[in-house]
């Protein structure tokens, strides 16, 4: 409980005694490139294959001849938009971005770089962490949009190449019973996940005490705690927004 309390106090420090706006603009841009552009490849790769696997596995399990084949595309679409693209992508990003944030801040802590900022009178948590949080909240949704598109495309390519569904059936399935709120739901979830991953990882890194061993532990804790926070928040948001 004390760690949760100290996490919320840490969040408070991000927004108090901030530096000038112009200081943050360049930092946010750099972080957007690092977090966003730097994660495109892994997110694209994982989601393309996840879409492909979802399509082939759904087809494999759909043995009833009375169920139309375009249902495969509908299942790929809905599972991608509602769950796979936002949640799985954010878990992948927790591994990549979260460990990076914790490692970077942890190293800065043990090499006294954070102390150097503090003695200059700079709010180190706000200066170092706020740009990462803002960049994550901006870039995660863009990555998830790309992930959703590629996952559905992966399903299309795998399904048609494997011969489990025709291109026409796939497209008709994608259009069948489409609810636009699903996309809003996915983006709301992503923004929440982005905030959780960036702040939890920053908290872990920022509060490292010790040496290289502790920085490694902080990176591991950042990923595991972020993943736990993601699945818990996923359940809560699903309950609140979809029931």
């Amino acid at each position, binding site marked *: 409980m004390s760690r949760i309390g100290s996490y919320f106090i840490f969040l408070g420090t991000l927004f108090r*005694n901030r*530096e000038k706006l112009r*200081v943050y603009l360049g930092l946010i841009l750099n972080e957007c490139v690092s977090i966003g552009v730097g994660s495109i490849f892994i997110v694209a790769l994982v989601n393309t294959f996840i879409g492909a696997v979802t399509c082939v596995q759904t087809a494999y399990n759909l043995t009833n001849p009375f169920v139309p084949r375009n249902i495969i595309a509908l299942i790929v679409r809905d599972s991608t938009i509602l769950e796979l693209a936002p949640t799985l992508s954010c878990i992948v990003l927790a591994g990549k971005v979260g460990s990076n944030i914790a490692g970077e801040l942890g*190293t*800065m802590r043990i*090499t*006294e*770089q954070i*102390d*150097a900022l*503090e*003695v*200059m*009178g*700079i709010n180190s948590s706000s200066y170092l962490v706020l740009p990462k949080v803002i960049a994550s909240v901006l870039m995660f949704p863009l990555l998830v949009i790309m992930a959703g598109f590629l996952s559905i495309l992966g399903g299309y390519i795998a399904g048609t190449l494997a011969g489990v569904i025709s291109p026409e059936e796939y497209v008709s399935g994608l259009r069948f019973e489409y609810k636009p709120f699903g996309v809003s739901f996915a983006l709301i979830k992503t923004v929440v996940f982005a905030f959780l991953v960036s702040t939890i990882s920053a908290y872990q890194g920022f509060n490292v005490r010790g040496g290289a061993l502790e920085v490694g532990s902080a990176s591991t804790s950042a990923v595991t705690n972020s993943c736990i926070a993601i699945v818990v928040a996923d359940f809560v948001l699903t309950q609140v927004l979809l029931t």
Partner: protein
Amino acid sequence: MIEIKNITKTFTDRQVLAGIDGTFRPGDTSLIIGGSGTGKSVLLKCMIGLITPDSGEVLYDGRNFLTSNIDEQKTIRREMGVLFQGSALFDSKTVLENVRFPLDMLTEQSAAEKNERALECLQRVGLEGAGDRMPSEISGGMKKRVGIARAIVLNPKYLFCDEPNSGLDPLTSIKIDQLIKEITDEYRITTVVITHDMNSMMEIGEKIMFLYKGNKLWEGNSDTLTQSDVAELNEFIYANKLLRETAR
């Protein structure tokens, strides 16, 4: 002038500082000496506000740092320059960007003025050609000099150096000591140096405070250092075989 009064600090059940008093005057290079784990670095961190002491006062020209509000503390902090033990240079910035960083963050000067000042400080520490290099590309001694350049870039009134010689060869150590002394004299800065380097004590110790197990056991200067009758201080000083031989 910096005054510290009755500084105490305890971590869990271990008292690290037991009521330390002291005065550090402008233009003096004051040394805080002692063995490892005697509380030197904790005292320094209490003075620069990285650790809050359990009790006591830290006065910067009469301004109580510990009871000041955030804005007043920021003002005092901006009058400080700190050279950290590991130099604490920002890995992602070049040497010039590191030195210019306090100017970027805390002043409204033009880019040209900031660059000029940063280059001037690099020149002062003898690193005029190293501005474009990354911290990972320079030696430990050069890092210390960059750290000093960054510490003086805002013309500080107070300069703190935490073990400036750690990890350096004797010759580079002497150069760093001389640089700190020259800068202190040149700008009449109040300089506080944490060290356990005997050469530093003899060369630049205008005022020396000896800490032992969190207590101040002795205060003097480099001339009186070897004439003390404090057993713990003598044990500390004459741990070095060469000095023992010389003393005989």
